[in-house]
């Protein structure tokens, strides 16, 4: 082998990248593997005990009963898994509006607030910040109008949403019931108000694997201005295997850590370098050819290498048309950044990524004061790109199988916070009734679901708790919330963790 180093490396490098993969795939996978280890290897695959990546290369279809994973040998993987029932959704893009968008100014109009503007609120209010609390009602400064065939009323601040309203279901009765950001984020994103539990994306990738072996199964797209409240816990795998942790695609280059070759690896030098590593590894394996773990590790270099190319390709927006760029608001100052992330999200899902979540920066929607300056700016950033995402997915026939979610961990109160002049008015936290929207993946298209009281403070009609939402989501993914379990500390853990979630039929198409 070593006498032909030059020849082999040249051969590897002269073939196109595609061919190189093909060649590697053959050598590692199905067609041309040497005799004895191949037989053994296949027998291990059949037994389900082969570590992940090699199996991914060799035998994508070999899966037994994975939704309740076999706890025998610890070999978790990201192979596609069968579901409990026929799924409608295959992927999800969640736009997490951290901080709590104001529902009565965006998608839950409450005319009585304007009628009673500055009058005393006639009931009980749960404040978060008592120091700045006021009991005076704040009318919405924004006009609402009916849109689309469904006639859902949307605020003038969200013209983009107004344009796609027939594909979207606005849920007006969300409820988590814990009035601070961290706990409510965990409720929405990790199933319970405590920290330490796996994120929704971790559960989905644990249950379903991914449709790609070249990209991470679960991706988080963070804002260039910083992480949301609770930081990395937002995409934590909790006690699930770290394989199911969200991979952060950074808001700036390099978008994936350790993904790009070090700068000194110019030209094709990394390919040559990897060929050298591979020669070393093959020589090492030759004397240990029955050690499957070594084989799997060699395959991991192939996967990592593929990931470099595939992820770079997936993140390369120059491949998109100008029309697409324009639709997402790329190139326009306010929307450029978020538009790019939305487009990346679509490209990732298109390539088989299971779950993508976009975050706004720390407390971007937490408008305790100067709401009239800040809320329009927040809307401006995300509205057009978010709408473009739905339109784009629909155009490409992907919306039916992709859940799109837009919403935060809470909404806001009908009364004034910071009652020191109109320009300073804000609204305090409200987790007792807030709005968000969903689209695609089997959710009902068009219209609204649930309602808050006449002031928009508490969800009163068809309340959707975070655990109802989660159970419904899992259902759309073909999963039964109680059967999707992970054994931890002797307990069968679930996303809902015993909370009485229901499948909300009214949300389904």
């Amino acid at each position, binding site marked *: 082998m070593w006498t032909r180093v030059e020849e082999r490396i040249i051969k590897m490098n002269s073939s196109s990248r595609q061919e190189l993969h093909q060649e590697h795939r053959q050598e590692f996978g199905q067609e041309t593997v040497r005799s004895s280890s191949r037989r053994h290897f296949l027998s291990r695959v059949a037994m389900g005990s082969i570590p992940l*990546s090699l199996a991914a290369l060799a035998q994508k279809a070999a899966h037994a009963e994975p939704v309740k994973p076999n*706890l025998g040998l610890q070999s978790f993987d990201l192979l596609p898994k069968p579901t409990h029932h026929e799924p409608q959704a295959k992927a999800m893009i969640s736009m997490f509006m951290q901080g709590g968008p104001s529902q009565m100014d965006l998608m839950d109009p409450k005319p009585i607030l304007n009628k009673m503007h500055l009058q005393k609120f006639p009931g009980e209010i749960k404040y978060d910040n008592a120091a700045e609390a006021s009991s005076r009602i704040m009318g919405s400064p924004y006009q609402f109008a009916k849109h689309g065939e469904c006639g859902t009323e949307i605020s003038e601040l969200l013209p983009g949403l107004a344009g796609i309203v027939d594909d979207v279901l606005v849920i007006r009765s969300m409820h988590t019931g814990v009035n601070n950001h961290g706990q409510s984020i965990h409720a929405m994103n990790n199933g319970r108000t405590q920290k330490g539990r796996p994120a929704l994306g971790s559960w989905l990738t644990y249950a379903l694997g991914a449709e790609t072996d070249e990209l991470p199964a679960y991706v988080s797209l963070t804002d260039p201005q910083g992480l949301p409240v609770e930081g990395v816990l937002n995409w934590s795998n909790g006690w699930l*295997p*770290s394989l199911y942790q969200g991979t*952060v695609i950074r808001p700036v280059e390099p978008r994936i850590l350790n*993904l790009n070759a070090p700068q000194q690896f110019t030209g094709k030098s990394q390919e040559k370098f990897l060929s050298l590593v591979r020669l070393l590894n093959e020589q090492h394996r030759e004397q240990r050819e029955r050690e499957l773990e070594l084989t799997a590790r060699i395959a991991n270099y192939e996967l990592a290498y593929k990931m470099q190319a595939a992820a770079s390709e997936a993140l390369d927006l120059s491949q998109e048309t100008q029309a697409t760029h324009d639709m997402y608001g790329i190139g326009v100052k306010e929307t450029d950044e978020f538009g790019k992330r939305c487009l990346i999200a679509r490209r990732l899902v298109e390539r088989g990524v299971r779950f993508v979540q976009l975050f706004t920066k720390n407390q971007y929607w937490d408008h305790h004061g100067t709401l009239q300056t800040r809320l329009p700016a927040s809307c401006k950033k995300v509205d057009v790109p978010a709408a473009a995402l739905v339109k784009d997915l629909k155009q490409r026939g992907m919306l039916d199988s992709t859940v799109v979610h837009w919403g935060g961990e809470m909404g806001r109160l009908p009364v004034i916070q910071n009652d020191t002049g109109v320009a300073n008015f804000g609204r305090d936290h409200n987790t007792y009734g807030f709005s968000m929207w969903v689209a695609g993946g089997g959710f009902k298209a068009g219209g609204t679901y649930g309602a808050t009281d006449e002031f928009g403070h508490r969800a009163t009609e068809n309340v959707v708790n975070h655990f109802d939402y989660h159970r419904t989501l899992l259902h759309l993914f073909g999963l039964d919330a109680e059967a999707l379990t992970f054994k931890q500390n002797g307990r069968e853990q679930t996303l809902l963790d015993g909370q009485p979630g229901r499948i909300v039929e009214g949300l389904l198409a």
Partner: protein
Amino acid sequence: MNPIIKLVLICLALVLPVQTIKSVQAEQGTDVVYERDVRPILKAHCFHCHGEEGVKEGNLDLRLARFILAGGDSGPAVISGAATDSVLIERVSSGEMPPEDKNLSPLEIETLKAWIDQGAQTASPEPETISEQYFTEEESRFWAFQPIVKRAVPILNTERMLSSPVDYFVLEKLRAKLLEFTDQAPREVLIRRLYFDLLGLPPSVDAVERFIKDERPDAYERLVDELLASPYYGERWGRHWLDVAGYADSEGYTDADTERQWAYAYRDYVIKSFNDNMPYDQFVTEQLAGDELTARPYDNLTPDAKRRLIATGFMRMAPDGTGSGGVDQMVARNEAIADSINIMTTSLLGLTVGCARCHNHRYDPISQEDYYRLRAVLAPALDWQSWRPPSQRQISLYSQQDRDSKAAIEQRAQDATDARQKIVDQHIERTLSEELIKAPDDLKEPLRTAYRTPSAERTDDQVALLKEHPYIQNISAGSLYLYSRQRSRRATDIEAIADKLESEAIADTQEEYLEGIDEPLRGELKTLLDIPENERSDEQKTRLSEHEALLVTAETLKKFQPEITERVASYRQAAKVCRETDARKELDELQNGISAIRDEIPREYFIRALTEPENHQPVTYLFKRGNHSSPSEEPIAPGEMEILHSKVSVEIPANNPDLSTSGRRLAYARHLTNDRHPLVARVMVNRIWYHHFGRAFVNSLGNFGQLGERPTHPKLLDWLSREFIESGWDIKHIHRLILTSYTYQQRSDRSAYLDQIDPDNRFYARQSVRRLESEIVRDAVIAVSGQSNNAMFGEAVPVMEDGVGQIVLGKENLDGERKPIKGDGLGALENRRSVYIQVRRSRPLAVLETFDVPSVAPNCTQRADSNVAPQALLLMNSDFIVKYSQLFAKHIQQAGGESLESQIAYAWKRAYGQEIATDVLKGFLDFQVMQKQELLQADSKLTPEAAEETVLAMVCQALLASNQFIYVD
């Protein structure tokens, strides 16, 4: 985040064995009996509602066969001989029972049916009465509870030179499986294996050469002894213990995950204890009850006393949220206690006692009462109702001399502070005067008075006045620096005021004079004055000179306006002082001086210890269903679990009058290290074996119970355990027995035959190929790069979050928005061994986490490793690997000779402990040429020399990234 692994491993075994063992019984048609076959199924799924804690739903108790036959509200649960007619079978088959829980497996149901059809037999007569703690004969006969018996070493004929009794036990098993030992591994393999096993470091080039050339017959044994004596041994083996102890440098439990500044002393204790080969019985006793071995007060401690108190840090390792705000204290306290019990029992006993916190153990004969007996042992030190948060459990290591010295230094610092205060006051006074110059004349005095009036005594007018003049109001010690910063501008202001005052006075003087003169002279003089001085004729000058006051200048002003002149002069003086006085600098210097004095105070160190308040014997209650707000009526006395007590009886005193503490933990520790305890020695010996082979006799290291694995080599496990006890709990003695065995020294090659019979190497017909653990990957990379910082002990090397939430080494330094500010790095500290890196529960170092460092919640009895693409990405592209590859390249240029050939050969040897083969070396040289060309082609600005440097680093990186580097044969 990587929390899974340990948890999964603990619970992992909970699924498989039950079914298989029982099913064999059922399938083979042997007699199915209640105690052995049926009860475990019912205990796991049904007792909770049908028998335990007085709960008998439907009046049905399933804990004895005769109760089952008698039945409940629905009649007999079982009709002997008629499974299909039995209600029990009907209910479990339909899935109606157990409710909400998962259903019984088909095999379990088959077992129940077989039992009924065979006449619902019991193995022995059932007891008259049954208590909550009832366990069966079958359970009592479980292997792990039996005495440790040292049986004779098997006598076997073999041509191999077997050197340790261990080998004969292993060979006996091998032969039963028609297997034989494989060949002995070559020396370069042995030395690398030994180095990583014992030190967690790769052997140096010299060490390999020395060993290979060593012709003495006991060269191998000498190497074993040499490595066992190395200080790095404690760092390696201490780390294994730190896993089971759940060592962490942070409290966990809450988001804040507060740091434990002083936890490191326990880590150092563990490392030292392993290096000193502290007898394991002493090691255990000190960790459980070091405080009880130490007389109060814990003051002016001897080194021994200090060590024993530090050792109790073991019982303080559990996550502890009780020092954090925003937690439910009662919940947090009980969690901390429960985690401590988990750590103690999984590490020392290999039993999942924690399962009995809420109900009787579902599988093992551990009752809920047993659990609370153990809790009562800890209660004087861990009393949830009279709790001391972490900060109040520290013992200061200050001596009287330290205290005196601190007091003296504090006095000096106070004197300096007083002196500084005087200067501060002067500056405030000066600043006030300067600022008042700015104020309108009529307000100067009212402002001064208002400012000097203590704020509480100011009149409303004064308050309003000051509010209008914030530049006066805000003068304070804290704001002096702001005034100091604008002193030059203020001096200019004052000078301008003085200038204005002066010119106005001149004008006034002339004005007043003219006013005293009648027309027309006044008009004439005015006209003359308006003529610029240098244009006046001599006559005009003479005319004016008769009127001195009209020719007044700044120099002569004093004569006419003495008061104003004085004021102007004083303002100018004030401006000068103002401009020249840098109060900020002066005060800062004084402050630095005070800090410098305080820096002389001897540093106060603390021990995180487990201690008991004096005369503290709280009463323990059982918590029904684990709920601390539902205590039992009857108190629970401290004691051993019943099943173990029945084997080796022990009385644990509620209070031992001979000690200054309750003596409970000490009595318990003495009992555990009693030479008859069935578990403690076995669990530790099993653990040692595991780390030498990557597999253990009982391969569920933290679970020796029903759901754990059965020992593959029970006789050898017992023989070694007995040997361990008889040698005085000598850990290094056990190492030697194992390491010098032929079993250990075998090659690691698999074969088709072997893989067919024993693919997992349960019987040791070879060694196993093993991947380095995360810390060792990192340490080995640093070592071969020639960068090792071998400093031992001390404060943890800090970790921090970088801009994207990746955890790196560094001192956290956040800006106002809590974003990290890029620091200078930690220098040589970055090259310390991984055992010294801060274990912040919520922040595992990225390099370690990628390679599966376990999370600590609360401890890890057995690690797992993953094999995923991010590991490859890290070895391909990370800053870490690039940095050390470059350093490795520099190192081989210095140490590997002049030529590229010799450097690469050296690098190979350093990385793998072997000679490089000629064809491989040739391959590397080819690579070098090719890669250099590639780089030069890709970058026209690159010099050939720079390209060579880069390629050499790439060669080094290839070695570090290769499987041969991170695996050991």
